[in-house]
């Protein structure tokens, strides 16, 4: 054994040198691909921090889609017409699909889907703070579609060009499907705003409650967003949080006029010097509280997710048992 020790040490040193050389080559290739604004694919060498950042972002994004089904699913049985019910079901089904596209993309980075699901259920994973607010009235289905999906689209369109191939491709699919989500929300608000005074009041109340949380979906102000700079250098993010937020405010200012409603923000203005839209102060303490798990619906959302997972256990087990039995039968025939 002792005689082998120096030999092992030599081999270890050689292995470690070979690894260093591979890493150096890999880094050079990675840097070149990023500089050319091309795409990194799953089997390419990538820096650990790049992999970790993407895995965090994509899995959080997937969780947001899955948890995001809840505030709306809750209204399916109370939709005011068959048409609205069918639309809402299609939208919620899309959110499930978007979650699955994104879990697939995250898996290519080396994380199993089980682990991501388990982390979400155990309360260890984050998802967008917006889904921890309650959907109190039917008008909230309008405000969520218009403001929340609107903000999501603003965020997601540039992500179609994210430097990680599978993420970009998932986002292309998501964005294609998402545009109906915003339009159906806008239409709900438009119809309520032109309905009875009570209906108009419902619409305005929903916009009042969802406006600030929607603006906060873009994440903390640039000065307070330490990871943004690196993500932009890696071509994952293309625009800063504040840049996207300002663009979104500009779009909403136009659209709210068509609705005949108002945004609950008296400080919105177009800054002629910077050529950017500005908005009033947002309560970032609230944002961090909700993110830390102390929002109005955090516990309820996780509990519901856990319940759904447990309720589905027998289906997963039955499907696996059936598959096992079928494959046994196939083998018997073959023999």
């Amino acid at each position, binding site marked *: 054994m002792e005689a082998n020790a120096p030999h092992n040490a030599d081999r270890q040193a050689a292995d470690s040198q070979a690894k260093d050389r591979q890493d150096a080559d890999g880094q050079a290739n990675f840097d070149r691909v990023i500089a050319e604004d091309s795409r990194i694919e799953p089997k*390419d060498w990538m820096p650990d921090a790049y992999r970790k950042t993407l895995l965090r972002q994509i899995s959080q994004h997937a969780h947001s889609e899955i948890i995001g089904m809840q505030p709306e699913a809750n209204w399916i049985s109370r939709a005011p017409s068959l048409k609205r019910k069918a639309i809402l079901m299609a939208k919620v089904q899309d959110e499930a699909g978007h979650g*699955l596209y994104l879990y697939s993309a995250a898996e290519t980075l080396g994380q199993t889907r089980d682990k991501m699901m388990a982390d979400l259920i155990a309360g260890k994973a984050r998802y967008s703070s917006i889904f921890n607010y309650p959907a109190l009235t039917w008008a909230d289905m309008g405000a969520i579609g218009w403001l929340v999906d609107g903000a999501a689209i603003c965020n997601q369109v540039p992500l179609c060009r994210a430097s990680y191939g599978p993420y970009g491709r998932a986002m292309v699919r998501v964005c294609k499907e998402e545009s109906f989500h915003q339009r159906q929300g806008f239409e709900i608000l438009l119809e309520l705003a032109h309905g009875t005074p009570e209906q108009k009041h419902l619409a305005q109340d929903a916009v009042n409650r969802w406006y600030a949380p929607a603006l906060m979906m873009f994440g903390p102000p640039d000065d307070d967003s330490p990871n943004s700079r690196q993500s932009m250098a890696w071509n994952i993010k293309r625009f800063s949080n504040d840049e996207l937020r300002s663009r979104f405010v500009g779009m909403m200012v136009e659209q709210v006029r068509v609705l005949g409603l108002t945004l609950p923000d008296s400080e919105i203005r177009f800054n002629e010097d910077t050529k950017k839209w500005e908005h009033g102060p947002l309560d970032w303490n609230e944002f961090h509280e909700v993110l830390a798990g102390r929002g109005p619906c955090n516990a309820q959302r996780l509990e519901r997710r856990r319940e759904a997972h447990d309720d589905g*256990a027998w289906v997963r087990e039955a499907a696996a048992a059936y*598959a*096992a039995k079928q494959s046994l039968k196939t083998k018997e025939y073959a023999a």
Partner: protein
Amino acid sequence: MNESKGPEATTDRNAWGLWEVFVRSSRGLSHVHAGSLHAPDAAMALRNARDLYTRRNEGVSIWVVPADAIAASDPDSKGSFFESPQGKDYRHATYYTKSEGVKHL
């Protein structure tokens, strides 16, 4: 496969393999890779693929293939593996310029 219970019992999905999904968007076109999903068997993989990748008439035909049945080229050997066509411009019609102006050629 599903012997343990409780919150840790999420491993039951491990029994569900990864499938790659290919969709033919209309007659006359090839199947194109659309994405992947997990399913316990081929029949469920097809049903899930229909629900996941053709909610808006995106396809007239679907293939599902177990992901581990796909053999892939090694990205690291990109240089040597694909070097053969390099410098062989004469395999393209654009290489032949002397016939410029001649019709139907």
